[in-house]
């Protein structure tokens, strides 16, 4: 403690510069804490598990132009041909997929007149959807062949009022039936009861959002009968490129009067969906680095100035017996004191900035553990920035004391 005293006395004579430095550290600390939190949120969003066998899936969107045709028959014909492509292990027609943005959201209750509800995305597909997606069944069973009915899209998806069974995600099961076995229970997206026959580990909704219930999904045994549909093909990772090429050719050969949208892998779908988030992460990381760099610049610049200004006093200290380590420690301690003041101020600013952001943007509260981590980062930064000037100071020879300038 005794060595703080002369430092404080000396800092007292440089209030302006010292407070500028502390302010710089505080501002950086506040911004870095909040930006780090944003990075963490974006990163958590982009690494959400989709629940599907991502590296084995290829998808092709197809739209028949003949709306008078029986779409179920058209889809079945297409699927039969797609399954013939060498390397295709299974295929299904679906109306929704994680990241494809086609989101049919409905409120779901546990009884027709319950007040509480969950918002969930509804997924419909032909037989074999579960297996093709590679969803992991953690309880119950897959749909039986006799449970499938048409979606009846032409009449406002009327099938939802007649479907008898559903498979839900574990997350949704826990929210709808906390602490209970969901199997055999009924859910009510509309007025008719639908029995839960299976639970899958994960199935991400077609659109995700930070802070939302992204895993609230329900699968129904309803075959999409819209003229536009997504065909999903399961294949070995190495076969995907060839299967994609052949899928488009196969579909056009069956019926040239249709639109086949660029076939793509699920990996690509996911990457495209999160492109903005990934760029945001890159930008945020770059800004943290930039902030740290500029702050270090300020600290080093000022330290250099101080060392030059105090060359004589350093010489005198050395002449009266201070070792090099003492001089080094003097500057390090001084920096530590200034950064500490800045960090204390910065922690308060960080919380304030977070409150300000929360008032204007959909952001949650900053977890408190970011504050000590941010503080630590700035202490380390301060010590690194001071090292070179402090070492230079410690090399000032005692003989300087005897010179006049």
């Amino acid at each position, binding site marked *: 403690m005794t060595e703080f005293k002369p430092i404080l006395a000396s800092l007292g004579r440089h209030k302006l510069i010292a407070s*500028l430095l502390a302010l710089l550290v505080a501002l*950086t600390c506040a911004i870095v804490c909040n930006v780090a939190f944003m990075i963490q949120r974006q990163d958590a969003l982009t690494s959400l598990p989709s629940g599907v066998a991502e590296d084995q899936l290829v998808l092709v969107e197809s739209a028949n132009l*003949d709306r008078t045709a029986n779409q179920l028959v058209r889809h079945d014909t297409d699927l039969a041909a797609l399954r013939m492509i060498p390397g295709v292990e299974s295929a299904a027609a679906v109306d929704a997929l994680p990241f494809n943005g086609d989101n049919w959201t409905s409120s779901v209750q546990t009884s027709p007149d319950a007040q509480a509800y969950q918002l969930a995305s509804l997924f419909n597909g032909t037989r074999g959807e579960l297996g093709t997606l590679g969803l992991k069944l953690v309880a119950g069973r897959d749909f039986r062949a006799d449970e499938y009915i048409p979606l009846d899209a032409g009449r406002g998806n009327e099938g939802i009022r007649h479907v008898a069974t559903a498979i839900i995600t574990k997350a949704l099961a826990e929210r709808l039936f906390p602490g209970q076995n969901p199997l055999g229970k009924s859910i009510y997206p509309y007025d008719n009861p639908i029995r839960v026959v299976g639970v899958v580990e994960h199935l991400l909704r077609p659109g995700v959002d930070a802070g939302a219930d992204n895993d609230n999904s329900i699968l129904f045994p309803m075959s999409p009968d819209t003229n536009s549909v997504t065909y999903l093909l399961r294949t070995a990772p190495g076969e995907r490129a060839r299967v994609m090429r052949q899928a488009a050719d196969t579909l056009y050969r069956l019926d040239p009067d249709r639109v086949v949208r660029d076939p793509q892998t699920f990996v690509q779908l996911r990457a495209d969906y999160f492109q*903005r988030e990934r760029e945001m992460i890159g930008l945020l990381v770059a800004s943290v680095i930039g902030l740290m760099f*500029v702050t270090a610049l300020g600290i080093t610049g000022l330290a250099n100035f101080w060392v030059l200004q105090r060359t004589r006093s350093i010489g005198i200290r050395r002449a009266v017996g201070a070792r090099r380590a003492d001089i080094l420690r003097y500057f390090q301690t001084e920096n530590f004191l200034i950064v500490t003041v800045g960090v204390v101020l910065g922690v308060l600013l960080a919380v304030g900035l977070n409150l300000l952001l929360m008032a204007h943007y959909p952001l949650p509260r900053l977890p408190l553990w970011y504050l000590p981590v941010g503080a630590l980062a700035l202490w380390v930064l301060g010590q690194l920035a001071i090292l070179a000037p402090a070492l230079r100071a410690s090399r000032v020879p005692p003989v300087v004391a005897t010179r006049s300038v």
Partner: protein
Amino acid sequence: MFAYYLDLAVRSLKRNPVLTALMVLAIGLGIGASMTMITVLHVMSGDPLPGRSAKLFVPMLDPRTPDHAQAARAGARDTPDAFTFVDAMNLLREHRADAQAAMSSGSAAVTPADAGQHPFFANGQYVTADFFQMFGAPFDAGTGWTNAQDDARARVVVLNAGLARKLFGDASAVGKLVRLDNTEFRVIGVLRDWHPQPAFYAQHGARVFGGADQFFMPLQTAMELQLSFRGHFSCWGDGAESRTSDQCTWLQFWVELDNPVQVFAYGRYLDNYWRDQQAHGRFPRKDAPPHLFGLMAWLAHEHIIPDSLSMQMWLAVGFLAVCMLSVVALLLAKFLRRSGEISVRRAMGARRRDVFVQFGIESALIGTLGGLLGLAIAQFGLWSIRQRPDGYAHLAQMDVPMLFGTMLLAIAASVLAGLLPAWRACLVPPALQLKTQ
């Protein structure tokens, strides 16, 4: 004197090139980052229809049940952003504004005349007759359709220049037939590549900036043919989830009101409509009266500019603040190291003001250099934003006011940053410093 101070400043900056470079770099980074984001927000918050926007309004009615409104609020939507078909048709029929139109986005498969080519999807807008005149969409050839054609569900279409050129080359498209989703439509008009930015009239979504609508066809024709619609389709209650239900919102509705009297009168009309419908058991949310938004207010209400962008701008401004603070510290150090020189000048008769001006000029010089660097960095930043996949990416260009704004900001910031150090420098007393020499 200015030239002399400038010369002094250049000498001083040359004396310590590393420090000078670091200061210029700090200013350049801060200015570059913030000007990139400010430019992006500036171009995005522009008026999509200059001259017309003040007369365009969005009426908004909330037909939802309180339950549904609550569920939607959990999804961060407090007011509905669309109309039911029933209300849109009522307002169209009653015709109380100078012009009014209902619309929805959609897409259709276009079959090229050349049989060798595969059909492709084009994005378009299903609209009612007043749309073109109300928004002043410029026709290259032909015209729009009439209210009678709306009611008759006519198979007519207006193409935007891009699709017309793609289908018919340089030949006139008007009068030609085009197959959209397997139905023949007669082209009655071609627009002169019309794509207001943002596409304010559509439901806000990923496509609001960027791609232009390629075709426009009568709304009720599209409904009769069950073409594909895009955008939110939000239903409540137990009715059938059909496009014609009064319990499903999905349409955008715009009115043109030429003067404040009409705006007031239309507001009154909406209130009456709302009460009248309530008497018939609709609009159960008594706490949500109708609202009339102006165009720019509507864009703000709909958060047309992504939150992430404005957040990035504030981050950049914060970064600039840190850079400036750092430059203040460096300048202070640099100026005070020259206390000896200052005191000599002061002793030889320079006034405080002279010293202040001298150091002010030195800071301004650093600011100018930093501003130039910032300009280059901002150009690079805008270039990298143009590589983004977002629809607004192509807008990220710096216009002349932004160019001047950048330089002004850089010089203002650095003069501001230099104020405190210059003031401290001019306080250096002549005598005391000379004694220590």
